[in-house]
C-alpha cells in the first residue's frame, strides 16, 4: 500500500460521514463511498501530490452524488426510506435522547435543498474553511456564503431553540 492508498484508507471514516449527510440511509451512503473510491482510483493520476486528498475526494463524492441523483430522477426513484428502528438499541435514556436529537438533525438536513445541505456539511461537519468548501463545490465564495446563510437559517427555524 503506498501513500495514496494509506491516506485514502484513513479518509474512509470521514467519507462515510459525509456520505451519511448526503444519502442518509447507511446503505446508500456506503454505496456512494464505494463509487467515490472507485472513481478516485481510476483518476489517481489527476491528484497532485502535496495537495489535500480530502478536498479532492470530497469533490469526487459531490460529483458522484449529483450523478446518482440525476440517474435516480430519470428512473423516478425515491431514496430508500431509512429503516425505522434500525439503530434502536437497548441503551439508556441519555443515549436514547442523544439519538433522538441526532435523528431530528438528520431529518432537518435531509429537508434542505441539496446544494445548501452539502455546503453546510462541508463547513459544519467536515470543518472545511470557506475557501476549501468553495473549491470542493466548484462555486464562487459568495455563492457558498449565501448557501450557508440560507441553509443555517432553515435549520435554525426547524431545530434551533427547541427547549434548550
Amino acid at each position, binding site marked *: *500500500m*503506498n501513500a495514496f*492508498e494509506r491516506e485514502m*484508507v484513513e479518509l474512509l*471514516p470521514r467519507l462515510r460521514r459525509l456520505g451519511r449527510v448526503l444519502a442518509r440511509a447507511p446503505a446508500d451512503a456506503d454505496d456512494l463511498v464505494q463509487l467515490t473510491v472507485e472513481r478516485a482510483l481510476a483518476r489517481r493520476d489527476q491528484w497532485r501530490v502535496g495537495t489535500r486528498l480530502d478536498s479532492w475526494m470530497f469533490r469526487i463524492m459531490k460529483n458522484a452524488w449529483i450523478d446518482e441523483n440525476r440517474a435516480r430522477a430519470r428512473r423516478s426513484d425515491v431514496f430508500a426510506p431509512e429503516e425505522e428502528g434500525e439503530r434502536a438499541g437497548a441503551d439508556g435514556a441519555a443515549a436514547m435522547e442523544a439519538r433522538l*436529537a*441526532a435523528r431530528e438533525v438528520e431529518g432537518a438536513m435531509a429537508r434542505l435543498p441539496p446544494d445548501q445541505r452539502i455546503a453546510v456539511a462541508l463547513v459544519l461537519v467536515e470543518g472545511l474553511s*470557506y475557501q476549501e468548501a468553495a473549491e470542493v463545490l466548484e462555486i464562487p465564495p459568495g455563492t457558498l456564503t449565501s448557501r450557508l446563510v440560507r441553509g443555517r437559517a432553515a*435549520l435554525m427555524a426547524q*431545530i434551533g431553540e427547541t427547549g434548550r
Partner: protein
Amino acid sequence: MTAEERLLAYIDGELAAADSAAFEAEMAADPRLAAQVAAHRRLGQDIAGAYAPVLDEPVPPRLFALASAANDRAPRRRLGLPQWAAMAACLVLGVLAGRTLWPAQGPLAARGGALVARGDLDKALSRQLASEDGAIRVGLTFKARDGGYCRTFESAADHLAGLACRRDGRWAAQVTSAWSPEPAAGYRTAASAMPPAVLAAVDAAIAGEALDAAAERAARDRGWKN
C-alpha cells in the same frame, strides 16, 4: 457582507483578527446579538454532533479492501479456467512446500489430502480478530457459499498469505501465496497488499459480504460453528 453573513463568518473563524475583535465589541454591547451567536454556535455543535458517531463505526470490509488493496486488483470478475489453474498450481506448490520446507513446525500440514493450518497459524485463525495485531494477521472473515467460515491471513514469519476455510474442525488452506510485509512496516491494515490470487479466491468463495467486527467476534465466540 450582510449582517447574517458576518455573524456566521465570525462563528466559523473566517473574519480577520481586527474584524473579529470589532464584532466581539459589538456583541458585548448588544445582548441580542450575543444570543444569536450563542444559538448559532449551538446549532453548529448539534449538527456536527449528530454525525460524529459515524467516525467510530467499523468501516465495511468491502470499502476497506477496495481502498487498501488497490494496487493488486485485477478487474473483479468471476474466475475463468486459467485463474483456477493458477490457483490449483499455487495450492499444489503449497502442499509441496508443506512437505519440504515446513516439515514439523510449519504453518500448514497435510491431513487427509488437505492442507490444514497448524500451530500459531491455527491459533490465529481460530482466536484472533482482524483488529488484533500479531506476528500473524487475520484480514477478512466471511461465509463461503457452502456455509462454512473462511478467513484470509498473512504471516510475516512464514512469508505466506492465504485463504483458509473451516472444514471438519480444522482450517483448510484454499489458496496460499508467497507474501512479505511491506518494507515500511509502520502502518499496516487488515487487507494490506493481499496477493491477487488470494483476493480472487475470496471473490470465488464468498457468499454475500464479509463479516463486520461484531459478527466476526460472535462467530469466533461460537467456535466457528454455524
